[in-house]
């Protein structure tokens, strides 16, 4: 069987004032008809550059050496016109962030028909009919209505399926999928992967699947290539990869994805909880699909307690109200009803005035999801930490502040040489360490982690979770961990609350919830995690409704 796509000894060079810098070294892989091949590695490993070279989307000035053959034709031998034709008709590509690839001012229908009308010269009516068929094929109900909607009205999972449908418009033979589920919830990830699996069966599509999640690649691909520092270090058959893996790095990735450290022993029962939330409610007023005002219930009667030095995980999909709960706790949102007390103080209302805000900042701190966006891009690491320290000790001498900055850097295991760097020069893990150090500057008794590791690579995730665990043991800070990822919970939390549609579905110790879940929803969340022998299945839970961050609790009758 001749491979549909063949990459042979591909080198990729980035432009650099000191001469071209090599980023990918002799990357070699081939994909047969109907085969799915995974390319797995951390960010910066060169996996995205490799697919971009195939799709002809390398940034300006990048050069390649080696061979890329599509259907046996070396793309270097083709004329630019033939090459463009080949890419338009044989290759389909899907990206990580569908929202960034869609013009927010145009409807889904415009987007779907544009390529058909302008590239394939199809008449408008035919293009619209074809677009509806494609949307239907990727499992979108009522495609006619969706075609009239704008990207902002659709959820991330739905948008990603629109992108898949658009990639299928030209009947490609090869689908290049670059981290297509990284920005999605586990359950949505499962749905998208189920769509891809169906398509492969029906269309004999070849798939090049790029991801940093080895378990996911193993579950959906026939073969998996592991990439590190621009080199493919190992190629494994997906079914037997757990046994056959020889390379040290593959084993690290595997353990990062699978290893489930034993939960920390639960703290002894304490009478006075540090955090007590009772019957919290929050409703947003938004404009509905028909232009009228609608009420969205984000948090609906949530009660939570957390012991000093304890660690509680709040799990749920986007729209479950978990982040809103945290934002209310820190005074970034105002609750409609309910009481909230921290360390014996009533925090039901957001702080009034700077002094009250500073007093609360000394007790509770927060680490945000995206460390790049939660740090001021203009500040160096040193300035950022010094500012956080000065808030609470305005009269300290410069030397005392510097000493404290260094102490914090040590606490989060950051090299002192990084003091003068700005966030853009740091890796994702380093940025999150800075954000954690900043949160620790006040010596808080409660640390809220809002999806603090979801934007990071698996290996970095493990590093940060280990660090948080160590900090918790060293300082005795209580952790409130908000996440959609149940594996994260197992590493760090002793108590878990599962939230859905603003309500608490289930609560208990981490071991109980993860090993013997009672609620159906918890089981669904656990089933969605890719693992050995996992098959993505399509489910419908009404999650695909159009609201991105807040979800109506009335969507599903309880």
């Amino acid at each position, binding site marked *: 069987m001749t491979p549909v796509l063949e990459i042979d000894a591909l080198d990729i060079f980035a432009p650099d004032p000191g001469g071209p810098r090599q980023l990918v070294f002799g990357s070699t892989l081939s994909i047969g008809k109907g085969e799915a091949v995974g390319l797995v590695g951390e960010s910066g490993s060169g996996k995205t550059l490799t697919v971009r070279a195939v799709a002809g989307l390398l940034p300006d000035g990048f050069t390649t050496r080696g061979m890329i053959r599509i259907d046996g034709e070396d793309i270097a031998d083709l004329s630019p016109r033939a090459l463009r034709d080949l890419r338009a008709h044989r290759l389909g590509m899907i990206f990580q962030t569908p929202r960034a690839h869609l013009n927010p001012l145009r409807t889904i229908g415009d987007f779907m028909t544009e390529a058909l009308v302008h590239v394939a010269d199809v008449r408008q009516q035919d293009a619209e009919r074809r677009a509806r068929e494609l949307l239907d094929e990727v499992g979108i109900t009522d495609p006619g209505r969706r075609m009239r909607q704008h990207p902002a009205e659709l959820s991330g999972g739905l948008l990603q399926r629109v992108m898949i449908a658009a990639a299928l418009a030209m009947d490609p033979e090869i689908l290049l999928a670059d981290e297509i589920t990284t920005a999605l919830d586990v359950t949505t990830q499962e749905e998208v992967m189920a769509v891809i699996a169906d398509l492969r069966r029906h269309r004999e599509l070849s798939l090049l699947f790029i991801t940093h999640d080895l378990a996911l690649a193993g579950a959906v691909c026939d073969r998996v290539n592991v990439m590190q520092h621009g080199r493919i270090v190992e190629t494994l058959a997906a079914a037997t990869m757990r046994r056959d893996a020889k390379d040290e790095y593959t084993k690290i990735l595997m353990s990062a994805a699978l290893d489930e450290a034993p939960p920390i022993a639960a703290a002894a029962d304490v009478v006075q909880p540090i955090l007590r939330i009772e019957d919290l409610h929050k409703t947003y007023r938004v404009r509905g699909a028909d232009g009228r005002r609608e009420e969205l219930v984000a948090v609906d009667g949530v009660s939570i307690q957390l012991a000093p030095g304890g660690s509680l995980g709040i799990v749920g999909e986007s729209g479950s109200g978990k982040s809103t709960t945290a934002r209310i706790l820190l005074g970034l949102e105002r609750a409609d009803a309910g009481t909230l007390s921290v360390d014996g103080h009533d925090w039901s209302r957001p702080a009034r005035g700077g002094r009250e*805000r500073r007093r609360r900042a000394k007790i509770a701190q*927060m680490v945000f999801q995206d460390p790049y966006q939660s740090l001021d891009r*203009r500040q160096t690491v040193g300035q950022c930490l010094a500012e956080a320290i000065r808030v609470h000790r305005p009269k300290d001498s410069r030397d005392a502040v510097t000493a404290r900055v260094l102490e914090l850097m040590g606490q989060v295991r950051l090299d002192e040489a990084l003091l003068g760097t700005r966030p853009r020069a740091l890796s994702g893990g380093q940025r999150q360490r800075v954000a954690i150090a900043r949160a620790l500057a006040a010596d808080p008794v409660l640390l809220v982690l809002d999806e603090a590791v979801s934007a990071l690579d698996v290996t970095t995730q493990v590093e940060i979770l280990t660090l948080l665990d160590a900090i918790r043991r060293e300082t005795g800070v209580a952790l409130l961990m908000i996440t959609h990822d149940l594996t994260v919970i197992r590493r760090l939390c002793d108590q878990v609350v599962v939230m859905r549609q603003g309500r608490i579905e289930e609560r208990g110790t981490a071991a109980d919830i993860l090993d013997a879940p009672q609620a159906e929803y918890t089981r669904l969340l656990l089933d969605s995690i890719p693992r050995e022998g996992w098959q993505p299945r399509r489910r419908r839970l009404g999650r695909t409704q159009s609201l991105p961050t807040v979800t109506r609790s009335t969507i599903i009758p309880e």
Partner: protein
Amino acid sequence: MSVAQIAGGTTPAVARRAAKRDWLVLTALVVFGLVVIIAIIGPWIAPYDPDQLYAGPINGASSLVHPFGTDDLGRDILSRVLVGAGASVFAPIVVVVLSTLLGVAVAVTGAWFGGWVSGGIARIIDVIFAIPGLVIAVLAVAVFGKGLAAPIVALSIAYIPIVARLSQTAASRELGKPYMAALRVQGVSSLAICFRHLVPALIPIVAAQMAIGFGYAMLDLAAISFLGLGQQPPAPDWGSMIANGQAGILAGAPEQSVFPAIFVVVTVLAVGALGGRVTVWAEEKER
């Protein structure tokens, strides 16, 4: 050999572009520096008294005695350009600085408090927007009397809405970013957030706006002097010189308009290039 040429050859396009941009900015800086020096020492290096009538022929062409020629009253145009530089260069600078300070203050206040404060400010801005700058200038003259102060105050007020609109949008967007929430959670005071984080974030957009505003201010001040509300004749400034030269252009003696116009164009271009560089520099610091 320019920096751009040295940088040519094997180095990538990005580096070449950067070098070229710096070369351009260097030129702009030198040009603007020269213009400012002229504006300061103009009266002392002018070869003739700028107001002396019949220093040469009426509508005289360029010559060795009068390099820029003479105007319709026989005054030396070079001397008038040099002496007029002061009013022509510094008045727009004052206008731009004043309107930017006030506009950004208004914008930050509106974006910070939001709600009815923001709405009220927006309405006031709309009202100012609706009144033409020239009308405000006439009012200002009634208050301050004739002279340069009136048009400067009038234009500063007239430009506030433009600066405020632009920077309020930018400020609101910046305030919505996660790092602003992070700063509040840390307990950083509102003033510190404003001055250490919010205002620096506005620099790129405000710098670009200032550069554009300088050009407009220069032209608007000229229009005001043309109406007789600004710099009072016979005191020269570039705008009124261009305006007064209109008749000369038709009569085949364009010198009176052309030479000050060249100075206006060169100055505005230099300031535009500098503003662009400040924007790029501030953005580079951000990324």
